[in-house]
């Protein structure tokens, strides 16, 4: 497949759901039930296309490729990293705004994730939403959501990303508030929308900082320019700030602490929507974003990302322990797992973070669709008994569903095992990778809190997920409603089975205990960081980057020193010196330093300008700088560390790093972090197995065998229980602080409005009225007087002349004759 074809198919994939949206929104009423068939068929086609793109992008090699049309407005680029298209959208002065789409391995995998889950949800909803009065509208919304999500995936620039980001927010709003007759649903929709806006504000500011600095929205161009050392406002802090601001978008969309409060409320939407948007795809957009901008995150920004993820994972897991609403448990579990992914990318374990996104998408979609299956049946059953008081989503009303809904139970149980990290599931592979990553991070930086949180969240995840399964599916029927349920139709069961099959290990790695053995780890290597080496963690730099940095700093320092020496020297002296050094310069070293020396030469040139040396002298010194350069490189190659040590204080640190890396020198590891992760792979695996086992075992003891009484435990830990049950009082805290402050501030503004602004307006009004009165008097007296006078004069003349009009013909004739006589007399 040529790059053009690949990109055209990607565009087609994105636009097809939009077609579904347009058909269903405009002809929905006429189509009725048919709209679901149209939507599902379109998504089926979409899925097939997405798989084509995925296979051809990920499993083919893409040699360097560059095609431009005549006026260079359209560019096709391809490399192993990314196949992309750039289009000059508009030019504005010197600014040339480009947009385009790009498919890298990340995007290719996401395309399949989004289309497959969207397809299954379309299928699932044909049954789940049947009978809803706005059925076609639902399919229209699903269509626009899928369109915008795919837009995020294929964007290769921040501009598209941001546009589709907002579109996704809109469709999420529409779908959460789908049953807007319910107050809770419309409130949840508003909450989700507004909370997301806070994050998006940061995202937008971040984009603006980058655009201001680099003059482009393209990822590859921004990272490319950043790698050459150009950073916002020449300040590492600003680069960190830009990274954190962009990350804020992810905080909003992926429901990270402190903006996680909207996601559990979003469960007011229809359950298939929860599966599609609020578990598998849209909330993953944040993680996807962080993965995309990973190269530009500095060490400090990464630390913020890691801690945000860790805190989110922990808080959400503790809340999920005590919730009784089926979907709320899953919602908090989603928040917790998203925290995991973010944390993973934050510690630098890029691949495992995205891997968890993928595996989590399958099993969490399975869990949500399973919950949909249960709730659908509970709802029907409650309807059967004309019971409208029992909450069909409350797990305390379920129990024993294992007997009536075997397929749902089996798939749900497997998905629960996957999320808990039981071996042979995909969840085990990804979670184990994340935990190994956090341990490696802890060891390298001393931030051991992150792995500790990671493991404790893993234990809690295993516990609450099995609690959910046991309480709702095992034991006896707790209500007659639960007893009356039965297994759902094929269209509901099929997606569950398919998603669970995808949660098996062998799709990703032949070895169920090591993800690194599979294609995924190889196809999704972490991108090289573009951040200047002094702003990045040592262990995330590759060997070449370190060497380059060490050379750059040492060369810069040396060149500076040489120039200072050379400046006072005469032309002759410089010549001699040059001759002496030149033959020693090794040809190979020259080549190696060629690129480097250019930069340093520039630097030397600047130095000259500063010193205001004569033109001739400057030229000489420049040549000199070049030559010293080559000599220095050679020297360093010979003596290694000794030479580095001699470079002085500025280069000391980098030199050390270089030396350290040299001694470890594993060769096949990209950087130190990858090596460290490899070391921690086995310990992390053993620990996570023990911890997940503990969580599962505890859950079984408590709810299956009833060895402990959960209520007694809750009573003995009342404050902690209440904290968890009330979701850490986040909503209340926000209500009391931010919302109260906003409302209070609004009130102050209202007073200002009422008193000051209204006062000014009223004063203006009063003044205008006064002026009006004066004008009115002038009008009445002067203007009207003039007009009346004119009228009176006219009517006076009229009255005089009308006397002539007697109506008698003979008098007229007499007048005529008199007039003629007078005329003749006077004109004579």
């Amino acid at each position, binding site marked *: 497949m040529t790059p053009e074809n690949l990109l055209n198919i990607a565009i087609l994939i994105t636009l097809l759901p939009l077609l579904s949206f347009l058909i269903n929104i405009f002809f929905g009423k006429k189509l009725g039930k048919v709209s679901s068939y149209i939507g599902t068929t379109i998504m089926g086609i979409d899925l097939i296309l997405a798989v084509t793109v995925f296979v051809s992008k990920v499993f083919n090699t893409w040699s360097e490729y560059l095609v431009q049309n005549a006026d260079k407005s359209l560019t096709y680029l391809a490399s192993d990293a990314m196949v992309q298209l750039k289009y000059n959208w508009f030019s504005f002065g010197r600014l040339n705004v480009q947009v385009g789409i790009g498919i890298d391995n990340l995007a290719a995998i996401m395309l399949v994730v989004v289309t497959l889950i969207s397809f299954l949800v379309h299928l699932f909803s044909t049954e789940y939403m049947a009978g809803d009065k706005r059925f076609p509208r639902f399919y229209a919304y699903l269509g626009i959501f899928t369109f915008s999500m795919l837009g995020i995936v294929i964007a290769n620039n921040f501009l598209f990303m941001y546009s589709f980001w907002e579109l996704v927010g809109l469709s999420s709003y529409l779908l959460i508030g789908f049953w807007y007759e319910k107050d809770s649903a419309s409130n949840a929709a508003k909450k989700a929308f507004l909370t997301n806006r806070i994050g998006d504000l940061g995202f937008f500011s971040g984009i603006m900082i980058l655009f201001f600095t680099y003059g482009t929205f393209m990822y590859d161009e921004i990272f490319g320019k950043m790698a050459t050392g150009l950073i916002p406002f020449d300040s590492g802090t600003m680069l960190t700030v830009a990274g954190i601001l962009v990350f804020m978008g992810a905080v909003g969309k992926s429901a990270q602490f402190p903006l996680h409060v909207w996601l559990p409320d979003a469960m007011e939407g229809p359950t298939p929507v929860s599966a599609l948007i609020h578990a598998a795809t849209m909330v993953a957009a944040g993680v996807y974003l962080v993965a995309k901008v990973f190269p530009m995150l500095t060490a400090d920004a990464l630390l913020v990302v890691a801690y945000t993820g860790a805190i989110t994972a922990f808080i959400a897991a503790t809340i999920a322990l005590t919730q009784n609403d089926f979907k709320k448990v899953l919602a908090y579990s989603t928040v917790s797992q998203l925290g995991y992914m973010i944390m993973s990318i934050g510690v630098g374990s890029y691949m495992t973070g995205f891997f968890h996104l993928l595996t989590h998408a399958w099993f969490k979609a399975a869990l949500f669709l399973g919950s949909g299956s249960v709730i659908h049946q509970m709802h029907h059953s409650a309807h059967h008994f004309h019971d409208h008081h029992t909450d069909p989503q409350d797990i305390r009303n379920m129990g024993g569903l294992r007997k009536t809904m075997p397929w749902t139970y089996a798939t749900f149980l497997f998905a629960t095992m996957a999320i808990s990290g039981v071996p042979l599931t995909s969840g085990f592979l990804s979670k184990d990778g994340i935990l190994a990553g956090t341990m490696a991070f802890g060891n390298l930086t001393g931030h051991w809190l992150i792995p500790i949180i990671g493991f404790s969240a893993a234990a809690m995840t295993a516990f609450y997920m099995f609690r959910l399964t046991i309480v709702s599916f095992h034991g006896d029927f707790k209500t007659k409603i639960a007893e009356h349920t039965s297994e759902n139709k094929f269209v509901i069961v099929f997606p569950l089975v398919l998603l669970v099959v995808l949660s098996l290990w062998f799709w990703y790695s032949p070895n169920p205990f090591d993800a690194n053995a599979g294609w995924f780890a190889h196809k999704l290597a972490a991108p090289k960081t573009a951040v200047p080496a002094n702003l990045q963690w040592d262990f995330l730099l590759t060997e070449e980057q370190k060497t380059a940095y060490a050379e750059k700093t040492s060369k810069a320092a040396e060149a500076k020193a040489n120039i200072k020496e050379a400046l006072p020297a005469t032309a002759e002296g410089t010549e001699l010196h040059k001759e002496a050094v030149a033959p020693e310069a090794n040809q190979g070293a020259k080549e190696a330093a060629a690129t480097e020396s250019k930069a340093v030469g520039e630097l030397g040139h600047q130095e000259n300008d500063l010193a205001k040396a004569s033109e001739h002298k400057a030229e000489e010194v420049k040549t000199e700088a070049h030559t010293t350069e080559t000599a220095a490189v050679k020297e360093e190659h010979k003596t290694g560390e000794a030479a580095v040590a001699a470079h002085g204080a500025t280069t000391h640190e980098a030199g050390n790093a270089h030396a350290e890396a040299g001694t470890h020198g594993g060769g096949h590891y990209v950087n130190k972090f990858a090596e460290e992760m490899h070391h921690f792979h086995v310990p992390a695996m053993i620990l996570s197995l023990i911890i997940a086992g503990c969580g599962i075992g505890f859950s079984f003891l408590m709810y299956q065998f009833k060895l402990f009484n959960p209520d007694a435990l809750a009573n003995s830990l009342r404050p902690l229980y209440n904290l968890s049950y009330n979701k850490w009082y986040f909503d209340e805290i926000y209500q009391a602080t931010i919302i109260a402050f906003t409302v209070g501030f609004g009130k102050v503004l209202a007073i200002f409005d009422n008193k000051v602004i209204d006062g000014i307006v009223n004063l203006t009004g009063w003044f205008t009225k006064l002026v009006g009165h004066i004008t009115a008097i002038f009008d009445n007296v002067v203007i009207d007087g003039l007009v009346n006078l004119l009228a009176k004069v006219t009517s006076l003349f009229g009255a005089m002349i009308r006397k002539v*009009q*007697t*109506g*008698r*013909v*003979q008098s007229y*004739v007499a007048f005529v*004759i008199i007039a003629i006589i007078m005329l003749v007399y006077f004109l004579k």
Partner: protein
Amino acid sequence: MSIGLNHYLILSAILFSLGIFAVISRKNAIMVLMGLELVLNSANINFIAFAKFGGMNIDGHIAAIFVIILAAAEAAIALAIVLNIYQNYKHVNVDEIDKLKE
């Protein structure tokens, strides 16, 4: 004393004055019309006189014939109007027909 242009003109002037006088002073519309005929005929005398004594030659005669034709046409229309007035007012007194004033 031979009869010259002046005699004709004086005759014509007298006739014209009488005509005008009739037009202005008579109550009866028929009389007013007859006054008008006098005025026209005085003009005819002038045309003929100038044809004979002035340089108008045949032009004067033709103009006189036109005036006669015009007088006939005028009489026809005027009498029709007078008839209509009579049907409306049951009289033809010009000084009482002043509705146009209002």
